[in-house]
């Protein structure tokens, strides 16, 4: 099986880590021949040399404080490692269970991990082998209305070619409700490989608003997964904003396992320059009367490349499923590229399932109308771009978070 190593110099940097990577080396490295990786080329990543992060040594930029959200409980991780002295541990609601480090690692393989079967094995294995720090947050039965929990993941490329494997586990107990927000930020144009896994269990009648704001360096590689398992009558409102990276791939994997569960899976790609972003969503309707709504919007400028692949499975027992998916792309230059693909597999007969995708430019009549009111062409373009994302931003339930995301997505 030596051939597998070809094109994956990536593993060279992992050899001295003391972790047995022989199993990894046997796993195929994805190529464009695989349907899952048709539009996202991983050759570049396979040829990189990264070393798994072991400890954080650099000085922390003061700017990390700017990322704090007033009114939230802010936690800071740098290159995947928890920084306790910067985190607001004192603000946590005493009823919540929050664990980091070894205490949280026990959840590295949970019942939700099964969802990874829809993902490319090698990245799941990498995260499981090299995860160095983790966070577990448990919201007990019936507890709701607490402040949003905000995890800031600072990626410091200046430390030099690090591979970072964070892991977050969320458990929302019966009838509980919570807001989680993860900000990924990089203050420089460093090169790093970020391969996080987020797993969440939403128990019966519970609700979770889960938001990711992914602001990477243009040189970064990001391959991340969000896996959510939903029990009866639970509700998920998820939103992923990304400004892209050299290679950005995010899998959002949701299984609606209990009757009456509802998932809203939304996202926004705001891409400039050479940046790339690939969102693969997968919603598995495994019980009757479940509902999913997906809206992904993408704005592309310069030579940006956006990929959206939305899978919907409706299992035979999932009668009365409602499933809706829409991907809308706004292209602002001739050189950008969009690949969008719905993938539906429907095995029940009494279901409502719609999907659609559009690619369009700014509307000249709208531009002209604004200009005739004295608004400059440039300002008019900005207003229309902002107008394009208005509906998807409005899917963010919490108004404070909506405002922050709106600013980050500004073009």
């Amino acid at each position: 099986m030596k051939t597998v190593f070809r094109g994956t110099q990536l593993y060279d940097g992992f050899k001295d880590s003391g972790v047995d990577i022989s199993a990894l080396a046997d796993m195929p490295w994805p190529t464009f021949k695989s349907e899952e990786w048709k539009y996202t080329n991983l050759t570049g990543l396979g040829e990189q040399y990264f070393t798994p992060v072991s400890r954080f040594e650099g000085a922390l930029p003061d700017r990390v404080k700017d990322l704090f959200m007033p009114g939230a409980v802010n936690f800071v991780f740098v290159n995947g490692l928890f920084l306790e002295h910067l985190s607001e541990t004192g603000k946590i609601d005493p009823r919540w269970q929050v664990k980091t480090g070894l205490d949280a690692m026990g959840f590295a393989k949970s019942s939700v991990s099964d969802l990874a079967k829809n993902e490319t094995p090698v990245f799941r294995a990498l995260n499981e082998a090299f995860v160095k720090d983790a966070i577990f947050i448990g919201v007990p039965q019936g507890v709701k209305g607490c402040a949003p929990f905000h995890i800031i993941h600072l990626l410091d490329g200046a430390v030099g070619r690090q591979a970072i494997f964070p892991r977050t586990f969320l458990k929302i107990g019966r009838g509980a409700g919570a807001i989680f927000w993860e900000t990924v930020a990089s203050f420089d144009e460093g090169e790093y490989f970020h391969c996080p896994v987020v797993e969440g269990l939403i128990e019966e009648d519970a609700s979770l608003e889960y938001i990711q704001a992914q602001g990477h360096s243009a040189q970064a590689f990001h391959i991340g997964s969000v896996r959510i398992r939903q029990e009866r009558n639970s509700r998920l409102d998820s939103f992923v904003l990304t400004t892209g990276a050299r290679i950005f791939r995010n899998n959002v994997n949701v299984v609606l396992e209990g009757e009456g569960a509802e998932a809203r899976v939304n996202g926004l790609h705001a891409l400039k320059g050479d940046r790339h972003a690939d969102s693969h969503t997968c919603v598995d309707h495994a019980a009757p009367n479940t509902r999913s709504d997906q809206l992904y919007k993408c704005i592309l400028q310069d030579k940006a490349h956006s990929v959206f692949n939305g899978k919907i499975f409706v299992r035979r027992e999932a009668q009365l499923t409602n499933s809706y998916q829409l991907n809308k792309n706004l292209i602002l230059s001739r050189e950008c590229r969009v690949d969008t693909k719905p993938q539906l597999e429907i095995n029940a007969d009494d279901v409502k399932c719609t999907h659609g995708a559009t690619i369009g430019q700014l509307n000249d009549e709208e531009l002209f109308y604004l200009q005739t009111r004295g608004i400059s062409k440039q300002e008019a373009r900005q207003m229309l771009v902002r107008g394009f994302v208005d509906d998807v931003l409005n899917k963010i339930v919490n108004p404070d978070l909506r405002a922050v995301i709106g600013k980050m997505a500004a073009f």
Partner: protein
Amino acid sequence: MLNIKDLYASVEGSQILKGLNLSVKAGEVHAIMGPNGSGKSTLSKIIAGHPQYTVDSGTVEYEAAGRVVNLCELEPEARAKEGVFLAFQYPVEIPGVPMSLFLRSAYNAVCRHHGVEEMDPLDFDQFLHEKMKVLEMDDKYIDRAVNVDFSGGEKKRNEILQMAVLNPRLAVLDETDSGLDIDSMKIVAGGVNKLRTKKNAMIVITHYQRLLNYIQPDVVHVLHAGRIIKSGGKELALEVEGKGYDWLIK
């Protein structure tokens, strides 16, 4: 204020305006009537600067701040800042752009151009509220997206609201009365009349003499096949209403 000389203009390769002359002075209201497809909206788009419409020959002179400019050389937003306003026959829907932001941005863009201080959002809300009251528009519209889910008549009313906010020197109203019920038309005409002064001018495009009972024109023109074929006083509108255009076209 406005002096159009021997204007030839095309859209998508076909010539629509063929030697049009029109002169409008400050304080005047001119009505333009004419059959469908005669070029009325084309003229309005040319004045506003729509990029799809090209001037083949002739000039559109406009007097602004004591000097005469050729409007065709200005970007649409520059024309607006100099006081040119077009109330669209078919107002454009702009999803996701709230009315409040749109109107305030427009107002402040014009302020900046004239070196006047911008209005802050709270003051602007009050200012806007007053203008909306005149047009009997409910405040709920300011949170909506521009023209989205507005009825036909509400869109027309919204055009006049924008006119009231921007207080233009030269306003072209393209069939603002079409689609308005009689009460709405009275309200809209009332709003327009409030904006009428000795210093500004209006061109009112309409198919119906009725509107001209409320907005009294100084001159009435008949546009046909890209040219003004007849001009006269208010009575011309009545005549057209009674007899149609055939007698003028021959």
